[in-house]
């Protein structure tokens, strides 16, 4: 996310707004300041994303310059909780289906085994009948 030093130097050189230029020099050319600034930038970007996805872009605490800088339009992402519920629903269906298959396989196996044993006895020990 963070630009390289060379990119920052080039961007500052191109900047025509003196106030922005001075601020950028002061903040982005000092490593410790840039690190903290980047962290805050990441937090605000994340909050902007969360607010857009959760319909909180017009909430009372998201106004002014921060909101202008970090508000994004909703990206059509789904609700995570609904997705979790859908996944659980699918997992339950798979589990139920597997249980049914397992039951059929077990019954089928048991019946086949019994039939096989009966046939074997009939063939190899007809005296028993």
């Amino acid at each position, binding site marked *: 996310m963070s630009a390289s030093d060379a990119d920052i130097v080039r961007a500052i050189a191109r900047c025509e707004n003196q106030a922005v230029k001075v601020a950028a020099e002061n903040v982005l050319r000092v490593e410790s300041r840039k690190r903290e600034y980047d962290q*805050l930038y990441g*937090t605000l970007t994340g909050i902007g994303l969360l607010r857009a996805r959760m319909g909180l872009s017009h909430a009372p605490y998201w106004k002014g310059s921060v909101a202008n800088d970090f508000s994004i339009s909703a990206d059509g992402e789904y609700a995570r909780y609904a997705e979790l519920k859908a996944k659980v629903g699918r997992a339950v269906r798979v589990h139920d289906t597997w249980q049914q298959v397992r039951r059929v396989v077990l019954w089928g196996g048991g019946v086949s085994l019994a039939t096989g044993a009966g046939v074997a006895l009939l063939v190899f020990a007809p005296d028993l009948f």
Partner: protein
Amino acid sequence: MASSRFTPFERLLLSSRNEADTAALLLLAWLAMSDGQGTLSDRKRTLLDELTGDFRHDHGYQLIVDLASAPDFVALQLAAEVLQRYYRGPRRETFLRQAIHVATHEGALAAGQHHVLRFLADLLGVAPETFEILFRDVAGYPLAVPEDPSAAHYWRSRESSDHRYSSQQGHHGAHGESSRERTGGEQDNAQGPRERHRRERRDRQREHAKDRHDETWRRGWRWRREEAGQREQAHGGQHSDEGKRHREGFSNEGFSHGGAYANGPDTGNEKARRALAVLGLMENAQKSEIKRAYRRLAQKYHPDRYHAQSQEAMVTASLRFQRIKNAYDYLMRQHA
């Protein structure tokens, strides 16, 4: 739809005894780690442990810390949705109190924490007026406007105050306070209201004996959680009463950790004034007057009198009674 595989946080939620508490823990950890330090200090980890001791969440702590430190915004969105879904009524307020305590535990709010706290308030639908009252109640100073680290003067004033602090208060370094704390507190040549707030904040922070505060706060915490649970059951019109109490500044919490602020004379006076107001008394009331007022109010608002009425009225009465009793106990300790 995304992959149908469960993410680690989804698995954690599904295996949690209470998904809302797990979601709350993740959001609190995110708030704690939005302080610009990038790590969760032992002190903050201990605080989170203490605050969430009665959360019904007993595993996956490391995963929570990892998700909060990254931070994983997919997990945070899920946590926020769960919180929005399950935290309603007074429980929202309880959670926000926890959040404010986490954010202000180590001194002034960092810029990131300002924005995360405001996001949480908006998420839970708590109006700015109510949130500011909550903040003042928990932190002991007003919620300021977040500063702008993209401006050069922010860094200049911050670093000059750091320098002054280290030259003047070198012997305080043993307290292990972070530079951010020092920044929040040391603005001796303050010009604007923001700087004045910072200076006031520092003074208050020093006046408060932090450890005693934490210890007493912790003791009061379980009671508040239980109370929040009761209030949640009797939600409805109850919440408006709670909001009113906070607007009036007569919160239960203010007295539940009574002696915690005793070191700060201003805060102590303020608390005593609030306690007297709860009992309907003026300043300089005598001990006998306090006792008389308490007996009268306790009789009037005793929960047994509301037994025949609705559960909501009963809960409201017991809260009111508890507030009166806390105020009385506080004043009796002051007069002892």
